[in-house]
């Protein structure tokens, strides 16, 4: 097990380094620096600013400083567009928002998706089964950027139940629509995966044996069928997490929640390189870590898997 974890780490760390170096190089080859404005700065001023941000150093030293800063001090450097703030300040402002509704979406998607999938498989070919299959097909063509405006039309414009945007420190009415818009398509995918794997498990021999022994249905499902049925789901959690992280960009922009996605697109428009890089690396690190944890969990839960 330890060997497996080490082996996985041996992939994860280079991946992260490649991501950092790649985005660093991209930023350096970009035409136009962060201080190229329509009215060119006097040469001396420009040189002073570049010296302040270390841009006058050779690029390999800049890269080294950047990586060392992140690894040792968790320091992503100063923001280029908002000169009085560091990237850390900006991230610290947006990240809690994204984390709040992201966590809720994830929990909602997993619990509701699992329950729906299990119910659909247990009551195969019933209305709940058709409902689960129907929503999972629908969700494939209703990604978050389609869900979000549709939800606003229904709940804000027609029913006047929920505010169409804003965050207000995460009060409940402001959280509901982002959570639903972000989580629905993943909930549907989870329901579909759970349903098909549950159906497979329920038709296997050991379940027939359990039925033959006369165990009650509920006990068969909870004690016998649940664990093997949920195993394939574990490997979907990684992609689902990645999808939610990227989806949060749309949610932030559409609902103006002020999360990390809004900061990301704002700095993309401002060409605020250090913020874009910081967010890309932070989210990259998050997804890589999450995938690592899921893979290790998978190997731990399913003893048949040995790499």
């Amino acid at each position: 097990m330890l060997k497996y974890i080490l082996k996985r780490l041996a992939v994860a760390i280079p991946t992260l380094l490649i991501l950092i170096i790649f985005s660093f190089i991209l930023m350096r080859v970009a035409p136009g620096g962060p201080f190229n404005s329509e009215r060119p700065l006097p040469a001396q001023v420009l040189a002073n600013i570049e010296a302040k941000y270390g841009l006058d150093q050779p690029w390999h030293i800049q890269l080294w400083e950047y990586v060392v800063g992140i690894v040792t001090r968790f320091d992503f450097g100063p923001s280029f567009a908002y000169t009085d703030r560091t990237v850390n300040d900006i991230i610290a402002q947006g990240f809690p928002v994204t984390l709040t509704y992201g966590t809720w979406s994830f929990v909602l998607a997993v619990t509701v998706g699992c329950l729906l999938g299990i119910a659909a498989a247990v009551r195969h070919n019933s209305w709940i089964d058709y409902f689960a299959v129907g929503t999972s097909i629908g969700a494939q063509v209703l990604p978050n950027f389609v869900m979000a405006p549709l939800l606003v039309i229904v709940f804000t414009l027609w029913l006047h139940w929920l505010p169409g945007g804003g965050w207000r420190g995460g009060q409940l009415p402001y959280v509901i629509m982002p959570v639903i818009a972000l989580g629905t398509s993943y909930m549907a995918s989870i329901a579909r995966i759970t349903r098909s794997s549950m159906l497979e498990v329920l038709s296997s021999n050991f379940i027939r044996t359990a039925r033959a022994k006369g165990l009650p249905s509920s006990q068969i499902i909870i004690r016998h069928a649940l664990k093997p049925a949920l195993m394939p789901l574990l490997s979907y959690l990684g992609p689902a997490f990645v999808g939610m992280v990227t989806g949060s960009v749309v949610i932030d922009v559409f609902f103006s929640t002020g999360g990390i996605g809004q900061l990301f697109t704002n700095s993309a428009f401002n060409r605020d390189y250090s913020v874009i890089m910081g967010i890309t690396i932070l989210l990259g690190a998050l997804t890589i870590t999450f995938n690592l944890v899921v893979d290790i969990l998978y190997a731990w839960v399913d003893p048949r898997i040995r790499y």
Partner: protein
Amino acid sequence: MVLRPIRVEAQADPTNVDDQSYLTATKSRSLWADAARRFFRHIPSVVSLVLLVLVALFAFTGNFFAVWTNSEVDWSVLGRVPELGAPSLESGHYFGTDDLGRDLFARVVQGSQISLMVGIVGAGIAVIVGTVYGAVAGYFGGRLDSVMMRLVDILLSIPYMFVLILLLVVFGRSISMLFIGIGLISWLDMSRIVRGQTLSLKQKEFIEAARASGAGHFTIIFRHIVPNLLGIVAVYATLLVPQMILTESFISFLGLGVQEPLTSWGALIAQGASNVMYGTLWQLLFPLGFFIVTLFSFYFVGDGLRDALDPKDR
């Protein structure tokens, strides 16, 4: 899958001397003809295919029917779009106008072109690069395989949406950059699927026979392995197209995709969505309708192709 009874062709009666038909051999059915028959028997896939053809026709011939061009501003509507910009036949704005008074019909036609093109080019890159990469990795195996696949693993674990946005920010937003960015990532899954298939294919006797008869590696890969992969590649390519369209729409929704006056479904949906509170619902619903119908159709066609071509389900 339900087992279908094998259809017995009407047998010629050998005792009837006049009937010579029993002398002609039964016409052989190729793998693809078989698959086509199975596909066309599946009604939802056929309906979806027809819908796709209609969307494509709309995208590439719609301009002949448009009264306005996609960048022309209708000054009589400007400023009063919620009242005057609604879809109507007499003004020539079949789909209404957008908030700047531009004809939505022409813009949807143009957006459909971009979105379909992104989908098809993305899937095309995936087919070419992914097939060759996966087939080479799977065929040669060993250290080359593990290095190549480790690279794919690493690329897959990078949150590519952010990298794509990064690329677009750094190199400026343009269609060619969008194609490059989408092409960079689209082939990864395909190469994994192809590699898996190649691994099992290369154990087969006909590959051994080809090797025994002196065929080189290049010939074996391109003459014997790749043609046998085409079925599964076709299925995944069809399922990739909607994913590419989704990716592009996502980027364009954020305003980081194609640039005005060009547009795409994602950009149109974003504009429609942001104006929804002014009561101009058509600005959202027309592009959204095309988007949903196309995605649905691609998924159904993909499913139908999978049923028709997947040898496991036969």
